[in-house]
């Protein structure tokens, strides 16, 4: 074979293959290096160039192995935050990681759904119900050293109503007129009208306290008053929270809690078995739990979430413009059966889009018992028996599973159902949520206290919000008892009378953990996942 190379110029070829090696090729005396040597040289050069670059492959996705302090806890989750800025990005993943851990509000909601003091040690409301006076905690500092005071409260709350915020939840702050700062430790919020719901919304992300010096670059950094600060963030991969020594309250139990985001539940559960994580939080594949149920090394907790899985019927599109057709769906869908097939029976039947941790929760599962005969009757009465409807289903596992059970139930009572699976979020948001091009759909609504959003005019459900607006406004302006009674009236009118939407079930808050892990919240009454008490025993 060497004889064959004699007439060619190997150095040319070598240069062509890998410019990086050209300088080492030396004088191009014909016939010196063989073709085989050129080939080997080129391959070696390419391989070593790549190896050099690839030695730190993955450094943008993983933290150094040695970086975690002893006692650090790692939790597996499946929905990564797109960035760290919930002022301009929606979704539950960002507040889940940051609220209560990095950012804090004046008030908080505890595991039982009760309002408790946070950055405000106490508060009072005047007779008219529009002036809330907050006494602030002393000696609170942001993680960058800035002091927390009534000026911070004024800055943070009033900023929600500026264009700096684009998250749709900012609407909850619309009735704030201004914040007064009589002294550094007293803040007075003046509302345009009395509202109890507003106080509760301060425990959600719109109540988060920011320091004016750190509101640029929120997508990649977070400066708050909470027990943790962000020590590392790898987009789509992990978020490390490190305990703050200078926290104003009781310091976090663990020196570091890392949230690791996995592409799917099976991989996350395998990581738990392999010891890479200490718990899987918010497990969305309940069928994976079976092998762990009797294993004493692991513990399963099942709490309530705020994720109501709602079967929406476009109230503005035939045949669901007719209340009888909507009632037929309410009677015709066996919700217990849907829960069994979509979520392995784990979850809660609630009958209305109100979670049990909400103050005005009421068990309405009996309002529309499963009654296929009655459903058929109603469909015949409305003259739509045998009609075909399209069911736009987001490509989420629980939604697809639920849609199949719903479709089979509806077919039995006399509606033909055509399932159309759509990519979530991109396509579903565009088609169903924004353009209202759908008849039936199903999605979990995870924001706390989202009942009135669901029932507002112009929202994709197509419900005529005017039917409950005055009841809701009166409830919000009253005292706690009137608020609860009024909101229950809203639910009865919209959900029971008008059959605006069928609430299939409440998603469970499922966690699977090593038995030695303590302090992980069981329920999630807001979207926040509070981590300050999490610790390895």
């Amino acid at each position, binding site marked *: 074979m060497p004889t064959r190379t004699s007439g060619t110029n190997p150095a040319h070829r070598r240069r062509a293959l890998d410019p990086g090696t050209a300088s080492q090729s030396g004088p191009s005396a014909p016939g010196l290096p063989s073709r085989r040597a050129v080939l080997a040289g080129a391959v070696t050069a390419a391989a070593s160039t790549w190896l050099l670059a690839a030695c730190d492959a993955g450094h943008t996705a993983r933290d150094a192995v040695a970086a975690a302090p002893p006692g650090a806890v790692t939790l597996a989750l499946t929905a990564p935050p797109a960035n760290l800025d919930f002022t301009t*990005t929606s979704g539950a993943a960002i507040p889940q990681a940051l609220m209560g851990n990095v950012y804090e509000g004046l008030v908080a909601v505890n595991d039982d759904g009760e309002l408790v003091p946070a950055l405000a040690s106490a508060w009072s409301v005047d007779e008219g119900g529009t002036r809330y006076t907050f006494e602030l905690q002393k000696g609170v500092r942001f993680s960058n050293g800035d002091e927390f005071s009534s000026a911070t409260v004024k800055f943070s709350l009033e900023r929600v109503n500026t264009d700096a915020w684009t998250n749709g939840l900012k609407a909850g702050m619309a009735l704030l007129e201004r914040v007064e700062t009589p002294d550094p430790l007293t803040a007075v919020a003046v509302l345009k009208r009395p509202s109890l719901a507003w106080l509760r919304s301060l425990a959600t992300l719109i109540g988060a306290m920011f320091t004016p010096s750190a509101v640029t670059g929120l997508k990649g950094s977070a400066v708050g008053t909470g027990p943790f600060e962000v020590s590392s963030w790898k987009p789509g991969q992990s978020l490390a929270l490190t305990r703050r020594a200078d926290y104003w309250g009781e310091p976090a139990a663990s020196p570091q809690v890392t949230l690791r985001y996995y592409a799917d539940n099976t991989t996350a559960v395998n990581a738990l078995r392999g010891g890479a994580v200490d718990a899987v939080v918010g497990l969305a594949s309940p069928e994976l739990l079976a092998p762990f149920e009797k294993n004493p090394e692991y513990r399963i907790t099942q709490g309530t979430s705020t994720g109501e899985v709602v079967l929406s019927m476009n109230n503005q599109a035939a045949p669901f413009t007719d209340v009888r057709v909507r009632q037929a769906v309410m009677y015709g869908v066996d919700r217990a059966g849907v829960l069994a097939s979509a979520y392995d029976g784990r979850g809660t039947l609630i009958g209305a889009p109100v979670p049990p941790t909400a103050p005005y929760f009421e068990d309405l599962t009996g309002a529309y018992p499963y009654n296929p005969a009655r459903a058929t009757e109603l469909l015949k009465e409305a003259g739509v028996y045998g009609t075909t409807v399209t069911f736009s289903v987001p490509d989420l596992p629980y939604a697809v599973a639920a849609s199949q059970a719903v479709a089979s139930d509806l077919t039995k009572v006399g509606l033909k159902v055509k399932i159309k699976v759509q990519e979530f979020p991109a396509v579903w948001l565009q088609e169903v949520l924004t353009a209202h091009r759908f008849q039936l759909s199903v999605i979990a609504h995870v924001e706390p206290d989202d009942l009135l959003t669901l029932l507002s005019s112009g929202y994709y459900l197509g419900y005529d919000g005017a039917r409950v607006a005055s009841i809701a406004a009166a409830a919000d302006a009253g005292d706690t008892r009137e608020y609860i009674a009024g909101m229950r009236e809203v639910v009865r009118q919209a959900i029971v009378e008008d059959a605006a939407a069928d609430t299939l079930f409440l998603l469970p808050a499922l966690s699977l953990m090593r038995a030695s892990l303590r302090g992980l919240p069981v329920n999630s009454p807001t979207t926040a996942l509070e981590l300050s008490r999490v610790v390895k025993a």
Partner: protein
Amino acid sequence: MSGLWRGIALAVARTAVTLLLASVVIFVLLRLVPGDPAQVALGVDATPEAVAATRAHFGLDRPWVIQYGEWMGGLLTGHFGESFVSGQDLSAIILDRTNVTLWLVIPSVVLALLIAAVLGTWAALRRGKVDGFLITVGSQLLMAVPGFLAGVLLVLLFSLALGWLPPSGWVVPSDAFGPFLARLVLPVLALTAVQAAILTRYVRSAVLDVSGADFLREARAKGLSRSEAMLRHGLRNVAVPVLTVTGVQLSSLLVGAVVIESVFDVPGVGSLLVEAVGQRDMVSIQGIVMVLVAFTVIVNLAVDLLQTLVDPRLRVSPRVSGAAA
């Protein structure tokens, strides 16, 4: 200008045109696909005004020509831009995550080639015998196993049942090389299995073709043994088709690794792409797909060049091929 240089210049020009066309196609397709990045970022509670403001913030309200020009300008100076959703500079992230995927792909291809060279040759030389038949059937079966299934089965056996290797994860190699290797083994095996099966079949048929060729009979007549003749004259001819297939497989492996990455929780470029598509993060998707296209095109270019090295008959210029003959 020698024929070799002319060939290289042609190939490079072809590569540049391919990349330019690809960039236009990627850019336009992404803007025709349903789904608005601003709507995805703002989610279910967004008001139309907020969506419009976010679109403007992302720069999506400007004419396509300007958006494209800006993107290309960045690419030519080595900047992939800034992610819509995470706000991070993409250049470092895309290259790093591509390196992670190459850690899976390159060892898999090398391993698959070695296995295929041995098994394929064996199967060809033992055609009609039991062992040759078994290799052929085995490779056919393995070709039908999807990569993710191989992955899940490997995890079940080696991690969960035997406990020999970690089931998933990634450790930066310069950080801790041992744990890095331990986590590399299973995903590489899962990728290798199917590739080795495919390549084995190509090697087998290439060896069969060559072993019936006149020049090999000639070599035997000269007094070489069968294996000597195959080693000295046959292998080079076997290499040409196998090299072509390997080039194609390398590209498809890079993209196909996405499934393996998700099964084994490997932060490669495939998982980055899937995240970006879910969020309609246009700038990220454009950048990642361009890197994948560039990789494919360059691998093809390299395969072409390697083939001219392996097989002198493929050279362009009469002078060079004349000299080599």
